[in-house]
């Protein structure tokens, strides 16, 4: 997964290859591994050196320390998926001051800490998509409680999605009973799932809105024998959820194309380092993805995808 030593690699013409560091929130979970797959594809295509490393436990302080090390190593671009924007902001600003291009991907950082954000889908599209999927699966007139199992209370993505989910839920007959923050931790997510199942007798649905809390919540529902009565939906990779979709605990999985997200991130990083992408640009050409639009400083990947029993087996990530 990782592949860097301090040696400067050169391409055949002898000029130095661009070195792009890609920092996921957590290394080793299938969501980010699938992003890495796309990133590798783009790196090969563009002839850049890709460094992929991140904390195995999702600790944002370790992310900050990795950024500091890459700054000293003098890489050309650092692409960060911050676990907690404020914690890594200092290190990102230092990297920028040292002349390194810094972008965020998957999750945004503070605006002064990066130049562009590679955005998988707008918060509104994701938040409303989640609620609409749940309503569709439950039946639009269903009454009862739902809960959200998020990641950390500081996770910028999840918080933005929750803000978008609230008005959509307000229009329905579902009542948001509580929001849980298990962190990016599978056993905490499972415990939170068990907790809400026993606490809310009128529970109709659980939203697991991180790729760790979604399978955790589904596992809790399956163990409690309430599969079918309590519906679980959320954001995760198809491979992690296939089992639950086939046994009926989960009817729909919401996500975007994560392989494309990694692919696009490296394209943006390369364009930035090569001077092809400037502030205020309205679009970018990203290889096989074609021309993608830039809104403000957000490079937009596209729309959400919904995986169901009908199509989930066609995807492998």
């Amino acid at each position, binding site marked *: 997964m*990782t*592949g*860097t*030593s*301090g*040696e*400067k690699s050169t391409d055949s013409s002898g000029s130095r290859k661009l070195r792009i560091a890609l920092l996921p929130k957590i*290394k080793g979970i299938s969501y980010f591994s699938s992003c890495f797959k796309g990133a590798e594809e783009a790196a090969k295509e563009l002839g850049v050196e890709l*460094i992929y*490393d*991140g*904390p*195995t436990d999702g600790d*944002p*302080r*370790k992310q*900050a*320390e*990795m950024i*500091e*090390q890459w*700054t*000293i*190593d003098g890489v050309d671009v650092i692409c960060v998926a911050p676990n*907690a924007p*404020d*914690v890594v*902001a*200092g290190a990102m600003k*230092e990297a920028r001051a040292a002349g390194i291009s810094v972008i965020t991907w998957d999750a945004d950082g503070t605006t002064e800490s990066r130049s562009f954000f590679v955005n998988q889908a707008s918060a509104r599209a994701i938040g409303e998509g989640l609620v609409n999927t749940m309503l569709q699966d439950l039946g639009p007139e269903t009454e009862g409680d739902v809960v959200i199992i998020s990641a*950390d*209370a*500081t996770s910028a993505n999840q918080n933005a999605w929750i803000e978008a989910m609230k008005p959509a839920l307000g229009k329905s007959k579902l009542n948001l009973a509580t929001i849980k*923050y298990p*962190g990016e931790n599978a056993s905490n997510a499972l415990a939170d799932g068990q907790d809400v199942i026993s606490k809310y007798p009128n529970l109709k649905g659980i939203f697991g809105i991180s790729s760790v809390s979604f399978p955790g919540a589904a596992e809790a529902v399956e163990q409690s024998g309430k599969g079918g009565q309590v519906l679980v939906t959320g954001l995760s990779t198809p491979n992690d959820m296939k089992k639950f979709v086939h046994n009926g605990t989960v009817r729909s999985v919401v996500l975007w194309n994560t392989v494309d997200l990694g692919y696009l991130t490296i394209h943006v990083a390369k364009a930035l380092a090569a001077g092809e992408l400037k502030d205020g640009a309205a679009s970018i050409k990203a290889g096989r993805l074609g021309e993608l639009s830039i809104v403000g400083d957000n490079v937009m990947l596209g729309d959400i995808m919904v995986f169901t029993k009908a199509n989930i087996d066609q995807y492998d990530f």
Partner: protein
Amino acid sequence: MNSMHDAGSSRSFRWWHETVIGALLVIVLLVAGWLVPGFLKPQSQLLLSRQLWEFAILALGMTLIIITGGIDLSVGSTMGLSAVAFGGVHAASGSLVAASLACLATGLCCGAVNGALVSQLRLHPLIVTLATFAAYRGIAEGWSQGHSYSRFGDDFSNLARGSWLGVPLPGTFFFVMAIGFAVFLAKTPNGRFLHAIGHNERAAKFSGIAVDRIRFWLYTMSGLLAGLASLIYVARFDTAKADFGKGFELDVITAVVLGGTSIYGGRGNILGTILGLLLIHETRMFVSRYWGSDELRSIVIGCLLIVAVLAYQLVSRRRRS
């Protein structure tokens, strides 16, 4: 004749362990400098030393405690609780000074509770600090409900990220304290009493050393240092959260033991601890910069500890025979 003379001179040489650790440190530096271009550059060394100072400050207190045959497992949790105190007070008052004082005071109180339990109730330090290790973390998490406090301003975060004459501020601070601790340990009666307590507590008591009072202040001081380390940590990441310092206690104990302080008490010094800290730090930096892998770090540190202890035993056994 000749061999007797050798034996005599090496017995009077008391710095075997420090020599072994120092040699290992030089080897690590040379290998790293050879394999990682720019590893030895003073500027990058100083920048990356940021990751060291919180551990280093905790290790000073831990050295003294382990010399007396005690241990403080609660330092990491104390950091977490102090950080939450900082965040809570800052959120309520908006004052960085009040928040910093609350952070230090919380550390002091946590340490004093440990000290009182160890010295007044005569409970074993391992049990006491194992209990407060869990309790302080629990209070921190309960108080903050998992939320984190942040945005204390660039000026505050520069206290940890900034430098003075090229040396990071926390580093300057650490070295001043380290000299103080070393002088206290080697040159003052109270400092020498610590070794006596570690050697034989009963004998120390009978010879009139105020063992309980010394113990109380040692743990209190360790708590205060944890509060200070927490303050630097909060400034470095511009964030205060209940999980700060998780796992630090074991890393700090590793550095102290690696530095030659006997876990049974009675032997140890500050120079050894500093060498132990540097050896761990440089090895970590080397491993993560060469292999770019977070997981390998702990494996290498574990192996290093075993190598260092074996190397020392080999040297000291030869010396004895």
